[in-house]
């Protein structure tokens, strides 16, 4: 019965780690992908909490659609946070 706690601990570390990575990383694409990972973690949490409806919603909307909309926004704006050197090159190349 006790070994049941191991997957939960792994899940907790995965979710919080992805959240911290999403905030810290400079590359927005990585940040957006880790937002998807957080939603995945949440979906598994909901599964453990005996809430299948919410797990399905979180998987369908949180992981798939939110990540896609973020990525489309990145395509329309810059891919790197702050005035990163790639930003300059990209802006230079563009204008």
């Amino acid at each position, binding site marked *: 019965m006790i070994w049941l706690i191991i997957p939960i601990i792994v899940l907790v570390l995965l979710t919080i780690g992805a959240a911290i990575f999403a905030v810290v990383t400079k590359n927005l694409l990585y940040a957006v992908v880790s937002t998807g990972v957080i939603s995945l973690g949440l979906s598994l949490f909901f599964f453990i909490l005996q809430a299948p*409806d919410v797990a399905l919603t979180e998987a369908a909307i949180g992981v798939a659609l939110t990540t*896609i909309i973020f990525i*489309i926004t990145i395509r329309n704006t810059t891919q790197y946070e702050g005035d990163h050197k790639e930003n300059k090159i990209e802006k230079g190349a563009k204008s």
Partner: protein
Amino acid sequence: MIKKVLVILLLAVIGFYLVDLLAQIPFGEKRDNVGDYYLQESVQSLKVANAVTGIVVNFRGFDTLGEVTVLFLAAMGLSSIMYRKKKKGDKDVRAKKPSSRILQVGVQIIFPMVVILGAYVFIHGHLTPGGGFQGGAIIATASLLMLITYRKFKVNHNTISWIESIAGVVFATLGIIGLIKGMSFLENFLPTGELNALLSGGIIAIIYVSVGFKVAAELTGVIDTVLLNNKPDSNNENN
């Protein structure tokens, strides 16, 4: 730098409040609340196997009506914010070279399956986990798959607005029929059949199917609006 310290301080205060509060709420303990009544009623009078669907559509159907409006307004607000007058030089912004052969064949196989899965999820909303929102979102991901893979695939905004409006009108009129029949708004006026049968739950099944269509059309419209709006041209003219 001071800003960061201030933020950390504020977070510490909020965190302390939250932890202190949650410490007094035991986890996993049975609390007497409205949930038991819903569980008991959804079996006896609604004959709906999935109690959560029973709550979302019938007991708290007004929330779902509000919910569908929120999504409708988000789609409308999004396209009004992203609105750009159509100019001649508008080229299709999607990838220039067509996607790889493997992806195209793969999508041909996956697309119908995902659409069927989505349809299954929202048709069996009142029996198995899932429902209108989940099924609609799954179908939206399927259409997204097509949008990304095939450049020729165009989402027809006319049909989307037709599906959206018809599904919304079906939901609202089902509610108003309850009102016309003298009962209250959104009341279940159809016979509810027996538990775990496909046609059980009266208007709940019909409402959730219309919500499924509406959410599928809306999310496809949202994704299409955001995906196909033009990347600012090189001279970055703003309209």
